């Protein structure tokens, strides 16, 4: 298997794909947003329990490739307890990682997605869940898509 592919399908990604965390509809959610990747058919719904400005709890549901499912799963573990601003900052780092491949050491978990940058067509898979989460935070219940040209 090529180095690129090994980089893409890191152990942590495979693990999240096989055993997704926080999967299913969160009963206490007061915010939800849905993301679609029309070309692939990938889908992701994110359920947030927002208390004030802080994410008390969250979950995701959906279907898609290992990258999109693992990314959504990992995201749920990262965003729990974060404020909206912290979530946005984390996404900005994540986006940086998947588009450039540069992952600072101390971020081992989301750093696992650095391998995505050599597969530009998969960037939208990796960001799908994040987009849905940020949209849920904005209380914008519309469908989001990662099909835009700036991804």
């Amino acid at each position: 298997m090529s180095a690129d592919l090994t980089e893409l399908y890191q152990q942590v990604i495979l693990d999240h794909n096989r055993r997704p965390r926080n999967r299913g509809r969160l009963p206490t959610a007061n915010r939800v947003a849905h993301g679609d990747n029309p070309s692939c058919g990938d889908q992701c719904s994110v359920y947030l329990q927002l208390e004030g400005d802080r994410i008390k709890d969250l979950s995701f549901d959906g279907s898609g490739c290992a990258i999109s499912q693992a990314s959504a799963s990992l995201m749920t573990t990262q965003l729990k307890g974060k404020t909206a601003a912290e979530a946005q900052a984390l996404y900005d780092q994540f986006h940086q990682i998947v588009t450039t491949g540069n992952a600072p050491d101390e971020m081992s978990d989301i750093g696992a997605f650095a391998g995505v940058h050599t597969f530009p067509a998969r960037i939208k898979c990796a960001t799908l869940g994040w987009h849905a989460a940020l949209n849920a935070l904005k209380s914008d219940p519309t469908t989001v898509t990662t099909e835009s040209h700036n991804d």
Partner: protein
Amino acid sequence: MPTWKDVRADFPILHQQVNGKPLVYLDNGATSQKPRAVIDALVKYYERDNSNVHRGLHALSMRATDAYEGARARIAKFINAADSAEIIFTRGTTESINIVARSWAQAHLKPGDVVLTTEMEHHSNLVPWQQAAKASGAALKYVPVLGTNAEGGLDLASLDTLLTPQVKLFAFTHISNTLGTINPVAELCRRARAVGAVTVIDAAQSIGHAPLDVQELGCDFLAFSGHKMCGPTGIGVLYGRRALLDKLAPDETGGGMVVNVTYQGATWKPAPERFEAGTPHIAGAIGLGVACDYLDGLDRAKIREHDDGLARIAYEKLSALPDIRVLGPKGERGGLVSFAFPDVHAHDVVTFADEDGLAVRGGHHCNQPLMRKLGLTSTTRASFYVYNTAEEIDVLVASMRRTLKFFRG
């Protein structure tokens, strides 16, 4: 007759490596590759004859017009149309269907009418009818796709109740781009005619793979794309029976399709010009004519045997993989096979396949409602053409095994 191995030499693109492996192109359902003869025809056109058509009396313009209209006649012969005026050049299948869904439907559909289609249609033969039904107040109904027993076939028995005199138009695909099902299109046309319904065949997946005779099929309209049959991109055909076309209002309007224009209004030329507003894709039409020559040179009955034969082999060999679900009919089928694994998503399959030099497609294949009905979100599809070989199926199966091993451990 060339052997199938010789055929590969005609396609320059095949002789390359992808990720260090020989390219194995099994994405012909999405688009086919182009033989040297078609590429050369484009170059020749641009290097020798390029000019606008129809409105010029100088040498280049006459040459371009002759070549463009010659291509129309060539394509008429390819599908045995009674008259080359029945061949309208479009961008592709999607545009061809949209023209019927607007020009014909706008004039003929009213509330209470029914448009009939099937559950296995490509979005391009589905959404335009949803729009036409919505605009006119007609109802849109679907012929069901059969499940486990007669996997992937249309429920023909349902036609007894579905094909009522209220049905004004029946649109269906010749070959399903997801299931590989070959529909009994002549029979569907006959039964539609019996209740007075106009028929539209989506021939996108059949046109390049087998002989096709519109008069024998007895359809009213038929749509296909050049790019799936060795032709250039941006060109396709709407075939329409002359008697229907002559009564149809134009879709797009502008230069080239008018007889008389005043500041108050305009009158239209007859078909095909009526439906070809503006400068057409001249090079594309000419290239498509050459693609017809190429396919006839290989013998389309033999192409069918070859492509469908590969699909049956692939069906067999893939079926041996653990936990695989192979879609569509087991026996006779068009030249493609889709399949899915319960635990490995098609996009991961395709990414791994790409590493092996394989071009296969993963996704919903523009077939979302059918996917949902089948309980799937996506499948991987291998689709075959004249240059594919049985050995390439082995590359495919080996790649699948490797992928399964990686994900399943």
